[in-house]
């Protein structure tokens, strides 16, 4: 089963929930936690586990073979992302702009373009007992996170057994990277805070997940601040609120030190239990 922990607004506690949930479940069953927030991956801060595998990740981009080129401009014309230009008799491809569709390479009549690998980031796979932790880190200056997100998901599908529960910590927001991270999961848990910003962005997330046809449930973090509009909205929309994590300073302090929380704060563990029960129900 695949579960995504997502949110519209950043800073609501996605990573806090995902990390603690994975750690808690790992006490009694094998679990995989995958950090797909490749621009700013943070789950690893909570785990100091053994690195079992690391690999550089690439996307395929075209390389120009001058000797074979006519030139005919087909590659330039066929590229819908403006990733190929011609300067005099030089064809210049742009890796940053390339979406790896292969049109230029496959349509070049002279086979003057071949794919080569362009580095986009690195994937790390850690393990300790029941918990497998996989994260990918996008190289600074690389513009598109989506190829790295989809490759990380593929790696996980191959490296981790199908019957092991997979928890995905997704990026914030509702655009492309989040869609890529959630489009094939079985359940999306939306973490929000009960404030106007939180509610506004939660509504966007709900809309996005409905478009993808993903089942959703909500976890309210920092319960006690703000107002009760969020609860009202979820009730009106028939969306189940499965946990309400209280706004405790102790939680913030432990988080700030990169410490796992559930074994130190009872109220947090009680709410986490509710999430676990909900997941167990869904697994049946």
């Amino acid at each position: 089963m695949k579960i995504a922990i997502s949110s519209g607004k950043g800073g609501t506690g996605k990573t806090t929930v995902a990390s603690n949930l994975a750690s808690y479940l790992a006490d009694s069953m094998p679990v995989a936690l995958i950090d797909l927030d490749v621009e700013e991956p943070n789950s690893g801060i909570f785990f100091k586990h053994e690195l079992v595998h690391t690999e550089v990740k690439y996307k395929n981009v075209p390389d120009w073979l001058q000797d074979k080129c006519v030139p005919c401009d087909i590659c330039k014309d066929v590229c819908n992302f403006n990733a190929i230009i011609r300067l005099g008799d030089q064809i210049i491809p742009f890796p940053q702009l390339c979406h790896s569709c292969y049109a230029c390479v496959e349509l070049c009549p002279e086979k003057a373009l071949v794919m080569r690998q362009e580095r986009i980031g690195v994937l790390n796979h850690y393990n300790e007992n029941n918990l497998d932790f996989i994260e990918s880190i996008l190289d600074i200056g690389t513009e598109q996170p989506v190829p790295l997100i989809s490759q990380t998901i593929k790696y996980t599908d191959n490296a981790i057994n199908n019957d092991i529960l997979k928890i995905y910590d997704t990026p914030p927001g509702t655009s492309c990277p989040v869609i890529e991270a959630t489009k094939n999961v079985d359940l999306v848990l939306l973490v929000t805070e009960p404030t106007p910003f939180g509610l506004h962005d939660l509504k966007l997330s709900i809309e996005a997940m409905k478009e993808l046809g993903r089942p959703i449930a909500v976890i309210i973090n920092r319960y006690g601040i703000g107002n009760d509009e969020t609860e009202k909205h979820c009730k009106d929309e028939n969306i189940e609120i499965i946990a309400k994590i209280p706004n405790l300073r102790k939680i913030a302090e432990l988080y700030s030190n990169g410490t796992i929380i559930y074994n130190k704060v009872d109220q947090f563990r009680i709410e986490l239990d509710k999430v676990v029960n909900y997941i167990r129900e869904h697994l049946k």
Partner: protein
Amino acid sequence: MKIAFSTKGEGWDAEMDPRFGRAAYFLIYDEDKDTLETADNGKVADMAHGAGPQAAQLLFQYKPDVLITGNGPGGNADRVLRQTGIKIYIGAMSGTVKQAYDKYKNNELKVF
């Protein structure tokens, strides 16, 4: 020498555009012939991706020796322009094309 400017309009009184890739126009002044040509970058300016290299491709058709602009080209465009050997001067963020040209002649612009 041929001097190119990233601008918002046409003619010596047009305002400089500090951007490169999404500049509205490029004006190319041929110092030897004393002619001012206009290249319309409008189509490129509207592109979602890759405006920089496309603008460079457009500009290259005029074979300028010098480019005068405001911020300087972004990473992708810069890579392309370096290959052509063009000399880039930045700092002409606002004012007219004429004023930018005078600044260039008086060594008041920075080399990119």
